[in-house]
């Protein structure tokens, strides 16, 4: 398995676009910088800054869309060049292949959030909006790691869908709908969609300012929601890859 993961990383060297997508991690920290410069006074509270730079749209939208695109790219490019046949001849296990891709997504997701964390600290401390404080920085790092790990699990259904499709148009379009659905369902029922369940887990302590939950927090139910979607996704991927010759 480790060998497969290593190979996946070696393949990434030729995909410049995958690395370029990491730049999206700077989008919200940069926007937060502009927001607190021109629109609103920060008042020295680092959590207010991090809420905009890392716990807002990055969590809800940017990271899931980037990961959805990555999942589609990882699955599509091998199908496009008919590499899968050669991989099956080696032979490699179909689920091993699927999980090696997933681990890549997981590590990519963590790296993405770590870049967001570093950028958040730099964009808040260097212009002098907040004072450097290890406590808040470690809190940000912890939350970013949580978001990175959990979001990759919530995107497993998109990876499975990409594995089951020949093209990429459907998976990337579904990614948008899937992310948008998670965002909207937050106000209706937080335990129906993996992305809204992930937000419940990340914000379980209610310590992120400006976020108010309208429903009672139930962490086991949130984990259950993610697990159910992931199990269905793995089964779907297993069937889809099993059928592929």
């Amino acid at each position, binding site marked *: 398995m480790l060998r497969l993961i290593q190979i996946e990383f070696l393949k990434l060297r030729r995909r410049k*676009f995958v690395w370029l*997508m990491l730049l*999206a991690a700077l*989008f919200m920290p940069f*926007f937060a910088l502009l*927001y607190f410069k*021109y*629109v609103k006074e920060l008042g020295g509270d680092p959590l207010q800054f991090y809420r905009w730079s890392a716990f807002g*749209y990055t969590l809800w*939208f*940017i990271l899931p*869309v980037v990961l959805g*695109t990555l999942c*589609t790219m990882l699955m599509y490019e091998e199908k496009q060049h008919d590499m899968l046949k050669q991989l099956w001849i080696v032979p490699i296990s179909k689920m091993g292949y699927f999980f090696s891709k997933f681990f890549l997504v997981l590590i990519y997701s963590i790296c993405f959030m770590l870049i967001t964390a570093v950028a958040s600290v730099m964009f808040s401390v260097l212009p002098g909006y907040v004072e450097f404080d290890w406590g808040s920085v470690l809190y940000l790092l912890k939350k970013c790691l949580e978001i990175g790990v959990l979001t990759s699990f919530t995107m497993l259904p998109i990876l499975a869908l990409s594995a089951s499709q020949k*093209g*990429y*148009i*459907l998976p*990337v*379009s579904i990614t*948008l*709908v899937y*992310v*948008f*659905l998670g*965002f*909207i*369902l937050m*106000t*209706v029922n937080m335990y129906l969609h993996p992305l809204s369940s992930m937000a419940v887990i990340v914000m379980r302590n209610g310590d992120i300012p400006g976020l108010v939950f*309208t429903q009672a927090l139930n962490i086991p139910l949130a984990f259950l929601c993610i697990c159910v979607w992931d199990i269905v996704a793995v089964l779907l991927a297993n069937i889809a890859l099993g059928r592929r010759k």
Partner: protein
Amino acid sequence: MKKLLWAECQKIRRLNIVWITVFATVMVAVIVFLGGQDVYDGSRNIDNAGWYMTMAQPWATFFVLPAVIALLGSYMICREEQEDTIKSLRLIPVNEVSLTAVKMIVTFAFSILLYLLLFTITFSVEAILHFSDLSLEMVLGFLKAYFLDGLGIFLAISPIIAFVSRMKKGYWLALLFAEIYSFAGLFMSMSNFLKALYPITAVFTISGYYDASTSQVILSCISLLLCGCLSAFILKGLKHSEKS
């Protein structure tokens, strides 16, 4: 030109991407409907006349529709080369500039049709829920707004379609660029000047979703026309690879 347009319409019937864009539009309507179940001030949002037709516009525009329209447009332009049909078209011979122009016209029509589809869905739901609360003036106002949204969004994203078609690095990049571009509109709407200038939010200034002064409307029109000119300029120099 007429023949090319006819041929494009024939080709498009076989494309799955058309059904995917329709599916995405329907899903946006369904998701916003679900969002409307939220209770505010003692009543569900969806029960307020006009709420659904109002809210579907920004949600669809900031999150989904520009990206899928850009994907459709760049797919239609790039597939001739990627599927190696451009050779046969050259043998006919077909003027490549006219071919690209026709594909842009089809994308333009699709942009308007997708927004009208969204209007049809939202209006139908509103009519089922509270027909008596809807006035003819309100419905016609929304119809005009959705039509202008479709027209404006096409102009706003046309440079992305043109740019991706020129880059030849895979048309799905259009989806990603358009997604970032439309998503950034959420933040541009915070400033009155940027709101009128940024093409995605300029669409709302023109369609009447934002209350805007005449100068803002003019600025938005200029911004969208510049986008159209930019895409025409990029596409004019588009030449399909000679190797293909």
